[in-house]
């Protein structure tokens, strides 16, 4: 039985700089794995390569979702197959109400999957329920997407989108950055509520703090563009105590 996400010997570069080197990772359905690592280790690159952001060149290896080649697909095709990225820096889009944006996205995915589009009343019902769970003011969703939102509001907006789009694979890129402790707790609760047997998550973070709230099944250490150590949740605590230095040495 293959995992939901299977990454084998993945190598990638930006311009002339090799960032990922023979990275392998197996993420079974229903599990939450954390990727931790020092700055510059390639954490964000991994999230970008998996989601198909232009500007990265895959130089070797593969990534498969449900045993299907992910890397050959356009970003939007990956999205409609269930890949979701919670951005480290969510984009502001003036002139577009968040609700309009989210409904367009949801229907684009449904259309790509050959499903019926969601009606306006059903959509509003769905979003109201999810927004309430994240303690979001519904009126905020009538405002232009992320424009004038605080850091915490932007991250909550990301998790709301994740809840509405219901992905198979959610990649959370530094979701804790820029959050105070209260916002962090709300965002983490939102993420935990989305745990499901047929959904997997990759939680990318620099600090252990987020993992107090989102308990991972496994922790991987990313250094020098590959996974240099893997273990249970206790590995995150070791890292917090000892730092990344010994892993950086391992990667060299």
């Amino acid at each position, binding site marked *: 039985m293959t995992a939901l996400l299977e990454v084998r010997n993945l190598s990638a570069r930006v311009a002339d700089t090799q960032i990922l080197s023979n990275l392998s990772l197996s993420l079974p359905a229903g599990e939450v794995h954390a990727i931790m690592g020092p700055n510059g280790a390639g954490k964000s690159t991994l999230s970008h390569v998996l989601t198909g952001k232009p500007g990265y060149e895959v130089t070797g290896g593969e990534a498969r979702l449900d045993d299907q080649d992910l890397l050959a697909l356009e*970003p939007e095709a990956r*999205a409609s197959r269930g890949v979701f990225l919670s951005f480290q820096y969510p984009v502001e889009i003036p002139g577009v109400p968040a609700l309009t*944006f989210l409904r*367009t996205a949801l229907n684009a995915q449904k259309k790509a999957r050959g499903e019926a589009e969601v009606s306006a009343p059903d959509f509003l019902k769905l979003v109201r329920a999810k927004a309430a769970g994240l303690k979001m003011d519904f009126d905020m969703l009538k405002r232009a997407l992320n424009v004038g939102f605080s850091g915490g509001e932007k991250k909550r907006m990301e998790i709301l989108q994740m809840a509405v*789009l219901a992905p198979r694979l959610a990649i959370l890129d530094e979701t804790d950055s820029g959050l105070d402790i209260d916002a962090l707790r709300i965002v983490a609760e939102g993420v935990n509520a989305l745990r499901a047997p047929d959904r997997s998550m990759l939680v990318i973070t620099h600090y252990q703090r987020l993992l107090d709230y989102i308990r991972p099944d496994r922790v991987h250490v990313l250094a020098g563009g590959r996974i240099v150590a893997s273990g249970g949740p206790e590995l995150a605590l070791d890292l917090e105590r000892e730092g990344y230095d010994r892993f950086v040495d391992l990667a060299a």
Partner: protein
Amino acid sequence: MSLAQALLTGDPGYLPSRREEAWRWTDLRGLIRVLPPPAPAFCGDLPLASFAAPFPTEEVVIVDGQGPTGLDIPAGETRRISLRLINAAAGAGHVGRVRVSLEAGARAVLLQTHEALAGGYVGETQIDISLGDGARLERLVLADDREDAVSVTISDVRLARGAVFNDAVLTTGARRQRLETRLTHAAGESEARLLGLYRLAGRRHADLTSLIEHESPGSASDQLVKGTVDGQSRAVFQGRILVRPGADRTDARMGHHALVLSDTAEVDAKPELEIYADDVSCAHGNTVGTLDDEALFYLRQRGMSEARARAFLTEAYVSAVLDGITDQDLQTVARAWLAREAAP
């Protein structure tokens, strides 16, 4: 030098050329070698106005420059008017002039549509707008010209004391198209809002030129023009605000912002402020940029195709202009127009 003069005399020597500063980016002399024959009198049925639906009004129709010469709204009255400027004769020339005059305290909402039943026309239309003391006019112009047409429209606007003019001009351009506004704050304490929106593709051209003159104290002008150019299209924005001696306490703002969507499209902009009065507040901003790659990826990551994401972002970019339209029916008409233009 004007297109109208050239059309009336048949002499291309009267065509404005790029040697004139005001026409440097909209050269007609180099484009038109021989002027077309005048349009014959129109006989036939006119189609229903395509944007009339949410807009119950009286209708004024001018075909190839021919029709009523004026619209006069008596003091204190309120009207909703659809002014249709229709180009009917293929490959013909025409010159038209119409007056829109609001007496003191009159109010009007004007939907001005430029429609084409055939292509290849060359036309100039002048619209003389005058607002009496305390009069209010809100106008929406939808310039739907053909891609092979040459079209010049001049709006000459004069505001009396305390008058309010709220104007929005939406265009997709033409082979050469100029939408010129000359506005004068003649007697003080008047307000003008000039909104512009262009969406150009193919080889289309649109020139939004304006001259706003503050001749008297205490008036305000607020101009915002946004647009996108794709393909090999070209947009021209020439905005000039002139604050004459004595026009103290003038408040004038001008903004022009463009998105360039292809390597072969072009935007030429010349914002100018000239101030000869005291205690004046003036500001202007001009930006030309491209679609943000981060935003594009964000939308695609959420499931939108690249084409859909581009259309979504460009529509979002320009739509802010429409927020300045206060009449709800005009707002609806303008949004429908933009949605039609944005449909992939």
